[in-house]
Structures are given as C-alpha cells and as structure tokens.
C-alpha cells in the first residue's frame, strides 16, 4: 500500500510518527517533571516549616537570652535580642500557622504552643519590667520559681513533635521525589530508546523505499538523458544538414528567381509576338477571303469551259456520224467501181473505156475513203483531245473545288488561328502576370528561407546546448544514482 505513496507522504508519515512519539514522550516526561516539581516544592515547603519551627524556638531563646542579660546586668543594651525575639515571635507563629494550614495535627500543636509562648513572653516582660523598676529580688524569685523553664520545656517538646512530624513528612516527600525522578528518568530513557528504534525502522524503510524509487527514476533519467544525448547529437547532425540544405535551397531559389524573371520577360515578348501574329492572321484571313472569291470565279469559268468542251464533243460525234455515212458511201462507190471494172472486162472495146472510168471512180472512192479515214482520225484526235480536256478540266474543276474547300478550311483555320492567338496572347499575359506574382512569392520564400536558415543556425546552437545539457543531466543522474544507491561494482558499471 505504501508503495504508491509519494515522497512527501512517506516523509510526512515518518515525521508524523516521530512527532507522535516525541509528543508522547514529552507528555510523559512533562508529567513526571511536574510531579517531581510539585514533590520538590513540598520538600521545600517542609524545609521552610522546619526553619520556622527552628526560628520560633530561636526567637524564644533570643528573648530569654536578652531578658537574662538585662536582668543580670541591668544594661539596656542586653534588651535588644529580647525585643527582637519578643517582637518577631507572633509574626513567626502566624507564618507557621499559614504554612501548616494543610496539616490539622500541626495546627493543633500550634494551638497548643501559642498559649505557652504568650505565657513565656509575659513572664519575660514581667521580669524585665521588674528589673527596670529595680526589684531584683522579685525577679530572682520569679526565676527561681522555674515557671519560665517549664514553659520553655513544654515549648521545646511541642516544637520537637512538630519538627519530628515535618521530618517524617520530609522523608516521605523525599522518597516521593526520588520515585518521581526515577519514573521521569525511565520514561525519558525508554521512551527515547523506543522513539529512536521506531524512527530508525521508519527511516530505514523510507530510505529504502525512496532510494529504490529514486534509483529507478534516476536510472530512467539516466537512460532518458542518454537517449536525449543521442537525440541531441542526431538533432545537431540533422540541423547541420538542414543548414546546408537551407543554403542550397536559398541558392536554388535565387536561380529560380532569376529564371522566373527571364520567364516573365519571355512571356512579355510572347504576348507582343502573339499580338503581331493576331494582326497577321487577320490580314491573312482577308487575303484568304479575296483568294476564295477568285477561286469561285475560276470555278465558274472552268464550268463554262467544260460545257463548251462537252458541246464540242457532241459536235465531233455528229461529225463522226456524218463521216460514217460518207465512208459507207465511199465503200459502196468502191464496190460499184470494182463491179463496174469486172463488168467492163467482159465487154468489148467500149467496155475498156468504161473500165477506165470505173477505175477513176474507184480511185476517187479510194481517196474519199482515205480522206474519210484521215478525217475520222482527226475527229478521233479532236474527241480524244476534248475528252482529255474535259477530264483535265474536270479534274481541274475538282482541284478548284478542293482548293476552294481548302481555302474555306484555310479561312476557318485563319479564324481559329486568330482566336487561338488571342487566347495565346491572354495566356501569355496571364503567364507574365503569374510569373511576376511567382517571382514575388519566390522572393518572399527566399526571405522565409533565410529566416529559416537563421532559425536553423539557432536551432543548431540550441541543439548543442541541449547536447551539453543532456551530458550534464547524464552526469547528474550518475551522481544522483551514486547518492541514492550503494556503490557496488555492478551499479557503478550500470551508472557508467
């Protein structure tokens, strides 16, 4: 249960136990010393009573001594002890009565002694008075009567009784004082020993408990301080690396800053060039539109050419048809001429002349056929040329169409280029702006990095301090461990 107590609680418990024991011992000792004191007071009181008893007797003796001197000598100088004793006795008896107020038997004896004293004093006064008057005889007779001696003997007897009783009481009270002193002594000795034992046990227990607790804590502190030392070392290394990295970062950021400025300038130039490009694209768009109109006109002309060429082809075909008829006629003429020649061969001399005519007709027909053939070839050439021209023109027309389409596409592309270039211009301006902002941000970052580098240097310094502190802490924990634990070799090695 006490394992969970705090140091303060344990120490407070130990001190509370010691306090209780001291209080008990003190109380007992106080009581014993009070008893001893009161007993001693009673002894003193008894001695005082004894002194008063002796005083009363002494005063009575002084008075008698003075009376006798005066009576004998008549010298007034001898009356001084008489007057001192006679005057002091009542006060002394009164004090004695007060002192023995708690003792009825002594009061009774005082009651008995008082008349005797008065009688004695009266006898002394009578004799002194008589002497003064000069009646020495009377005085001698009174003394000889022995009245005075009788009073003195009784007084001595009573005072002796009182003295005896007081001495008995004194003895009894001295014994009581001795007993009280012995009790107080025993109480103090045994109580102190008990207290020492308890305090020793509790102190040992507390010392062991605290020693083990502090020892384990100090061991933990030692391992923690070792870890802290290692961590501080690592931190110092890391901080140095960080400082180097910070320096590199700062250099890189400076380069980045320069690059950002270059980018901003380039973006500005790009924006200018893009603006010029946009103007060129717009003028190109207008040029393309003009070219498109020209191509449309060419297209119309080409269509006309194609129509004319087709018409020419049709006409050539018609010529061919007519030529077919001519060729057929020539062939028929040729056949007729041949047949006429054959017929003429079978005739007489007239037939020979006819044969000549027929031959001429045949020749004519041959020539016609040849010319027809030539014409046909020419017509074929014309038709072929027309076909070629038509095909070429159509392909040209298609090319013109394609060109027109391509021009439309080019126009659209120019429009797109203009749009894109305006977008590019805006983008370039945005890039310029962003790059300037970036440059500003990079400058801020540079400042921040410089601050961070400074902070890193400070951190490096503080980590060095931390390392030193950790080393000191480790040393302190070793010292503390040596303080709280007995220095065995194992413990010493552990502490190291």
């Amino acid at each position, binding site marked *: 249960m006490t394992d969970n107590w705090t140091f303060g609680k344990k120490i407070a418990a130990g001190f509370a136990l010691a306090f209780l024991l001291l209080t008990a011992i003190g109380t007992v000792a106080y009581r014993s010393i009070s008893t001893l004191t009161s007993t001693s007071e009673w002894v003193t009181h008894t001695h005082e009573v004894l002194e008063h008893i002796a005083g009363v007797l002494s005063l009575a003796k002084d008075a008698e001594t003075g009376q006798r001197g005066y009576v004998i000598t008549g010298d007034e100088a001898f009356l001084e002890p008489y007057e001192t004793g006679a005057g002091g006795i009542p006060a002394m008896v009164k004090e004695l009565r007060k002192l023995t107020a708690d003792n009825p038997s002594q009061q009774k004896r005082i009651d008995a002694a008082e008349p005797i004293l008065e009688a004695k004093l009266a006898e002394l006064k009578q004799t002194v008075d008589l002497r003064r008057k000069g009646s020495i005889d009377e005085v001698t007779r009174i003394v000889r009567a022995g009245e005075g001696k009788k009073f003195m003997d009784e007084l001595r007897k009573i005072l002796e009784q009182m003295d005896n009783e007081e001495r008995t009481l004194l003895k009894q009270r001295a014994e009581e004082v001795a007993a009280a002193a012995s009790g107080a002594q025993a109480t103090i000795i045994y109580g102190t020993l008990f207290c020492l034992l308890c305090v020793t046990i509790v102190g040992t227990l507390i010392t062991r408990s605290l020693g083990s607790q502090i020892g384990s804590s100090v061991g933990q502190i030692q391992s923690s301080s070792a870890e802290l030392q290692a961590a501080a070392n690592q931190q110092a290394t890391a901080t140095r690396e960080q400082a180097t990295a910070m320096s590199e970062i700062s250099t890189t950021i400076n380069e980045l800053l320069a690059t950002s400025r270059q980018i901003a300038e380039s973006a500005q130039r790009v924006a200018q060039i893009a603006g010029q490009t946009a103007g060129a694209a717009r003028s190109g768009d207008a040029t393309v539109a003009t070219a498109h109109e020209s191509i449309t006109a060419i297209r119309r002309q080409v269509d006309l050419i194609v129509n004319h060429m087709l018409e020419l082809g049709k006409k050539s075909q018609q010529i061919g048809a007519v030529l077919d008829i001519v060729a057929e006629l020539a*062939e*028929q003429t*040729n*056949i007729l*001429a*041949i*047949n006429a*020649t*054959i017929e003429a*061969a079978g005739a007489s001399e007239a037939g*020979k*002349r006819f*044969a*000549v005519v027929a*031959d*001429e007709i*045949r*020749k*004519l*027909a*041959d*020539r016609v*056929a*040849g*010319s027809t*053939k*030539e014409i046909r*070839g*020419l017509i074929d*050439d014309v038709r072929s040329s027309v076909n070629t021209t038509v095909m070429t023109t159509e392909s040209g027309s298609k090319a013109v169409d394609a060109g027109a389409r391509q021009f439309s596409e080019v126009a659209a592309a120019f429009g797109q280029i203009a749009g894109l270039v305006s977008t590019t211009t805006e983008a370039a301006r945005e890039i310029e702006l962003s790059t300037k902002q970036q440059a500003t941000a990079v400058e801020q970052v540079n400042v921040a990095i410089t601050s961070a580098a400074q902070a890193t240097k400070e951190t490096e310094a503080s980590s060095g301090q931390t390392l030193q502190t950790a080393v000191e802490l480790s040393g302190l924990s070793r010292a503390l461990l040596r303080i709280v634990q007995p220095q065995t070799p194992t413990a010493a090695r552990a502490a190291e």
Partner: protein
Amino acid sequence: MSAGASQNGTPSGQPADPVASGGRASALRRQFDASFAMAAAESAAERLDGVLAIRLGQDPYALRLTEILGLHADRNIVPVPSPVAALLGIVGLRGKMAPVYDLGVLLGYPPVAQSPRWMIVADAPPSAGAVGLFVGLAFEVFEAHVRVPPAAFAQSEAAEKPGGGAPRQHLRGTVHAAGMLRPLIQMASVMETIRGNKR
C-alpha cells in the same frame, strides 16, 4: 481501203493542215481531170491486172479480178441446213439464187461464229459430166482493189499457204500487192472443190 491510201493519199494519222488539205484537194481534182484528158488507148496499153487483196483469219490473200463476177457487202444470207460445213446459206443475186460458201472453210480455216461480211460471186461453166456453178464465196476482210503490173505476179506450182501446213491445191502463185506478198487463190480449183462437194 488502205491500198488507196498507200498509193495516193497521205499516210493516215499525220495531221493535215488546211493549206495542205487545200493543196491535196486541188491535186486530186487535177488528177481526176487528167485521167479524162488522156487517151483511152494509152490507159489501156498499160495492161494492168486488177487484184482484190483480202484477209482470211490473219492471213493475206489475193484474187484475180478476172476470175470473179462481182463483189458485194452486207448481203442477207439465208441459212440452210446442210451437211457441208462450208455452206453458209443461199443469197439472191440479180434475180438468181446462189449458194454461199465460206471461202475460209474451203481453204481449211475453222468456221467463224458470225457469217463474213464480204462476198465475191464466181461461176464455173458446165463441162463434160459436170453442172455449171454460180456461187457466192464469203470472206471476212476486204482490204483493197489494186491494179498491179504483170511483173508483180510470180508463178509457182503450188504456192505455200501463208500459215503453212493447210491444203495447197487452191493456191497458184503469188502477187505483190497492197504492200506485201500474197498467195493467189485460184477460183477454178475452188470451184472444183465445191463441185466435188455437190457430187
């Protein structure tokens, strides 16, 4: 037809400019007029023989004009069933009916799908034990009617058929006509064959 061109006209295929055409027309006209201006005897004294240049299959042949009766084109041949492979049908000629034979088949060529366009008419007089003949002989291509001098003819017993290997009995001699050497088809021999078929 190309024969006339080869002799008298400009080769076909060459371009004819208007000036040249005009020149040619006037030259033609002069030649035509001159033929009538010359004496008939002079013309006849040349003794030129007429020859028909034809083509059977891809091979050129020639026919003497004196051996035939006429030349026709695009005649309507009415087909008749016959065991004779060369007989194409019959045709009406100047009020007479005449059988038409494929000259190519008679000379050993395979028959063609369409009946030939051209046709010559020939006859053979009746002789001892034989009837007279009046027949049409159809062929595919008529090339030209040319007149050649006698020197152009070359005599030989049996001329080689141009393609080689086929019957030679109808070919007698050659003639250089229409730009090339042509075997001459002898109509008498052909007629004999037709007559043999009839028998």
